[in-house]
């Protein structure tokens, strides 16, 4: 009798977990669809709600990056900076981390914040250790939730960031 109760409890827990995951995926997909449809304000609110309700979801880092990107697009640089700094701290292994730093570099340059600019430049340069034997450069790519195609090109003595194929930030050393 006890054994069957235990099995039923485990099944219920797994079912609830699956339902939770489904809900999170659904909520993120809705936000993503809004972003793809250029309903940026609506998408931003959905990403924010999603992050509040599912902070541990596998989509949470994409949502947080999207929130930071929205603030940047709205020229709300203080909120954008706060969000991106939180992002790179919370997700040190995220593939999009380098682009969060690119946004921070762009803002430091816009706000003439040299100290922040030097600090973030160092982080970007140290992001990877380049070994270019046959290639001349190495590229990192990321498609953001707001449908932005972000590219980082690492050469031996420069790093260039492109957003939608337009040069967006650059470091020479």
């Amino acid at each position, binding site marked *: 009798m006890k054994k069957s109760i235990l099995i039923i409890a485990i099944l219920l827990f797994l079912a609830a977990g699956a339902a939770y995951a489904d809900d999170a995926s659904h909520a993120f997909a809705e936000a993503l669809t809004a972003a793809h449809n250029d309903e940026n304000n609506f998408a931003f609110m959905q990403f924010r709600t999603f992050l509040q309700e599912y902070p541990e979801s596998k989509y949470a880092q994409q949502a947080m990056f999207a929130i930071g990107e929205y603030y940047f697009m709205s020229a709300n640089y203080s909120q954008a900076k706060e969000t991106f700094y939180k992002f790179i701290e919370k997700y040190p292994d995220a593939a999009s981390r380098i682009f969060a730093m690119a946004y921070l570099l762009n803002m430091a340059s816009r706000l003439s914040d040299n100290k922040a600019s030097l600090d973030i430049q160092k982080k970007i340069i140290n992001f990877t250790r380049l*070994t*270019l034997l046959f290639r001349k450069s190495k590229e990192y790519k990321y498609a953001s939730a707001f449908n932005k195609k972000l590219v980082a090109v690492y050469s031996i003595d420069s790093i260039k960031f492109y957003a939608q194929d337009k040069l967006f930030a650059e470091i020479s050393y």
Partner: protein
Amino acid sequence: MRKTNYSRKFPTNIKLSLFALLIFLLGAFIAINLLLSSLKQDISGLIARFIPATVKIGNIFYLPPDSIIVKEVDFNASAGQKDNTVFSIPALTLKFSLRKIFAQHNFIVDRIGIYGFQADYHRLSYYCRQNWEGIKKLISIIPQEDIKLTAKKTNIFLAQNKKLWLIDSSFTFEKKGDLLTCEGSSFIDEARGLTNGQLSSPRTHSLPFNYSLQISYKPGHLSFTNLELKRENLYLKLWGDFAANTLKLNGFAFMKTLPKESGRKKNLSVPLRVFSAENKELPIKEAGYLPGADLYLLDINLAARLALPQVTIDRFNFSLNKNPAALKGSIVFSAPFSVDLEYYYGIKSPARYTAHNIKDIKGHIKGSFGNAIIEASGIINIGLDLKKKDGLTPQELVLKYSGLNALIDRQVRVKIEGLEINYPMGRDLCVIPLKNFQAVCETGKINNCLLLYQAQYWDGLLKGMASIDMRFPFPISAKAELKGVSADNLKSVLIHFAKVHGKLSAELNFTNKNRISTDGSMHIKNGFLENFDFFKWLADTFSIPGLRKINFSSASSDFYINELNCGLRNMDLEAPKLKLQGYFDLDNNDLVHSKILLSMDKQLLRESPKFIRLLNVLGKHAPDFQFNFQLSGYLERMNFLWLKSDFKEAVQSAIPGFVQRNIEKEVEKTIQSIP
């Protein structure tokens, strides 16, 4: 009737009276002079009761109406010894008050004139130190009446640095109630010495030191209301008090460090202003005490305990050209003059010739000075204010010296048994140990010292020259040459040298003018590299054991270090199976800029199973292996680019693109794994 002749009788009486008075005065004059003459022995005896001395008086006589003249006074340390004269006075005048004699029946000398006092400084100061208690007792029996002492042509001889100096002073000292004042001037000149007992004309003619002193005296307490010292290149003013053996002084001084000595006839052109108690702390721009002064000692605050010959300085704070300075310790004013002092000088307002990157200098010195020889040991800690604060740039420089012996003559000759220069670099302490340091300092030019030096550095020899600007804080331009030192010993300066073996020779230029900068070149012949980081990495990554130890015939490089960057230029390593050329720069942000050309012999490459396959693919006509690469990024995570070369083109054309990508991924994975 006989007429009375009044006109004849009266003159006769006057004449008689005058004659009688003359006889009386003459008798009194003779009697007084006989009495004075008989006092010669008594005076000597009286003095001898307090201090061991024999006083020879040539002549003593009364000069009416109120003077006593004493001639040819010789004050000898003790009887029966030749050449033991402490001082001599050719002429001495004592003046007394006739009024006090007749009104108060009191014989009081109230004016003393001394002419031509002569003494040897060392003998006089030694005698005074030895008999100080007796001198104090002798002074205490002198009636404490108002007195004025005037001294002219007071000549004190000082033998120093194989030269004879003459201190020629004239001054007036006056005691009036509780107030003591002294005013006078002194010339300090190099003397030719005495010829037939007469002073020859001095070799030099200096400008005088003028001084004035005003002291308020109460039992157990002296209050210095004014102490002034003036010269063309110096103005000093002090005030304070002395009680319970403790001297407290405040004051300020101005100096010109470029003195212009000229003839004695030239007038003193220093427009000195009169001080009042209210304007003691005038700002420098208003002061004008010494126009053209370039050294300001302001806010002097001294507290010192006197137990002569020792003076213990509890506090001596002042600002030197607006920079804080402090001294603490003890000084012994006896032969040999010795000090045990801690000092501090902070640089907040660098002068135009200041080494801007020195933050402060502090240290300790224990030593002595006598017969023109300084003996000392101590430590000098130089705090640096370099822009870069990343742990790789030293923030302080420490010089420890022991067994310093400096002979000060026309040249200054310095010997230091042990001199250690150290500075923290990151977590390590870099040490430059020098033994038997010897230097000669030529001080021919004003404000400049040319230093020629040599020292034993590990098993090699360091020698060179330095030009030191003697104006604080001593900007230096130096050249050094290092010969025959085992390169691995230099690990105490740069840890990478631990893996470099062979005899190293180097040339080095150093300056701290405007900013600290070092550059030079080094060369090692017939040495070897063992487990040198870069080659060890190559050996491990590409399985080439021959790179673990590389015997080379010649390795050389230029180097430079300054506040903004450092690096190696014209690197050149010649080994039988390997050649390396290139440069490596590291900038202020620790970013690397480097290009290196590495050529390896095919025979060496055949040691590697990986390269054997590659060489087989390339075939017999493969070009020489020239690995031409560029490094960039931060030192701790350098990026790597294989630059274009014939060899690279041959490799690229021999292997398909997807294989290139696989190789690249593998190498990248390997490099990423390196911490």
